[in-house]
């Protein structure tokens, strides 16, 4: 992956000098990192996908040696998905507090009032039609004292 990015960046015919975006993706059973690049040789964007990273320990080489600006975007992907970018010299959480332990944009992270997708449903897999459970168990509320 490092060689691919380096060739895209340095090759005289390609010269993808602008890193337009770096995004983490959780597909439900693996992690991905998606790069969008732009070059003055073409008007179109180029999408590079690093796929099939393990969900338990996703590791990717950092792109900061080519694009210094990738540093914060990698920090964001680390903060939101737990993807570790090896070689990034400042891989801290960027939005969440430093003592936070989970990764909010992962698909098994549920927001509190999301009734249609309770934790019991498990991970919502990509490219699989999701139907909310019709007869969800009623939410038990503790009686106010």
């Amino acid at each position, binding site marked *: 992956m490092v060689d691919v990015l380096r060739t895209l960046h340095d090759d005289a015919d390609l010269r993808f*000098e*602008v*890193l*337009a*975006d770096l*995004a983490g*993706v*959780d597909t439900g059973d693996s992690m991905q990192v*998606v790069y*969008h690049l*732009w070059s*003055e040789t073409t*008007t*179109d*964007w180029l*999408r590079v996908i690093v796929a099939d990273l393990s969900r338990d320990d996703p590791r990717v080489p950092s792109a900061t040696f080519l*694009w*210094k*600006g*990738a*540093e*914060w*975007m990698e920090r*964001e992907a680390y903060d*939101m998905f737990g993807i570790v970018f090896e070689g990034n*010299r*400042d*891989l*801290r*959480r*960027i*939005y*969440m*507090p*430093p003592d936070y332990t989970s990764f*909010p*944009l992962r698909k098994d*992270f549920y*927001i509190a009032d*999301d009734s249609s*997708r309770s934790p019991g449903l498990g991970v*919502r897999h*990509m*490219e*699989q*039609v*999701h139907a909310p459970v019709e007869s969800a168990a009623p939410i038990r509320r503790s009686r106010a004292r």
Partner: protein
Amino acid sequence: MATRIPSLDDPRVLVSTPATIYDAIPPYAPRTEREAEFYGLRDGEMLVNMGPQHPSTHGVLRLVVKIDGERVVDLDPVLGYLHRGIEKLSENADYHHAICYTDPLEYVSSLFNELAPVMAFEQLLDLRVPRRAEYIRVLSCELNRIASHALFIGWMALDLGGITPILYSFIERDEIVEMLAALTGQRMLFNYMRIGGVNGDLNHEFLSRLGDWMGHALAQVEADTALLNQNEIFVRRTRGLGRMDRQTAIGFGMSGPNIRACGVPYDVRRAHPYSVYPELEFEIPTREEGDSYARYLLRIDEIKQSIHIIDQVLHRMPDGPVMAQLPRRITPRPGRAWAAVESPRGQYGCFAISDGTDQPYRFRIHDPSFVNLQAVVPLMPGNLLADTMAVMASLDPVMGGIDK
């Protein structure tokens, strides 16, 4: 024997005070190479905490500044005080709802926030937008760009200590905001773009306000900026400060006026033309100096170009519908889409993944201020502490977008 009253001068009191997240030095061991480098102090250096509620940080940004005397040695921006989890919220909302979540991201230029996701969703749906809707989009976006740049001029002067220019720029901004309020029904968070078009057609009030404004728009820009362009204090505090060179700017992925002030003519409207921009005639102003003053002048040039674009759009506005035929509940086929627009701060992108349901599977916003703010770290060293805000202001970051 007199009992000692604990006071803040007593070192023991300071030691026993529990550490908070606002302490300049974090209460834990450094976790990364950079953190160890930053928080290790050499002789004569000290850390100063600015923010998160510093009056001139454009929102809630916290800067930990390492200084030696009056000079800045290094800088560590701490983000996240305005993080609302908009990406997560949008992934749990349907496509129409996701658009209204994006409004408060960059609250100074909300129309661009809506345009990028709308364009990405249209790509997913393979949808063609009526030409009149495209023209209205360009018209309203360019108006929003002028309002944003006008506010920038006032903000920048305010951060340098001049209070008058912001009053003038608010006059200009208010006229445009009233105009957009007549068009969209809202003053700030417009929620005007729709998948397949725009919410409503041009109305009489909007057009009459626009006509009034067009008559004196250029003169007003000249009047606003005459206060600053030749102002000796302003020029001294901006010219030559925060100088960025071409290669660093490209490496940092900067975009918008900040990179064009370094001489790189990168503008998404030309780099990857969208909407009806290929049919319109406009220039991409660039400057070579790359300092704060160049970034300021460049935005004035952009206001003039935007007025020129609006003029053309009004002359070419076609007739027809403003919305494509679309069902209420939309379910795009599985796929990925990336769309970027040129917002007043740079390349504003949206990456959306559909899994075939009525909710985006992944919704990612790429915000230009987020990337531009990174460049503050190499720009600052060597400057006076008081100029930190002057350089920051010239990059025009908006924390709503940076923190998502």
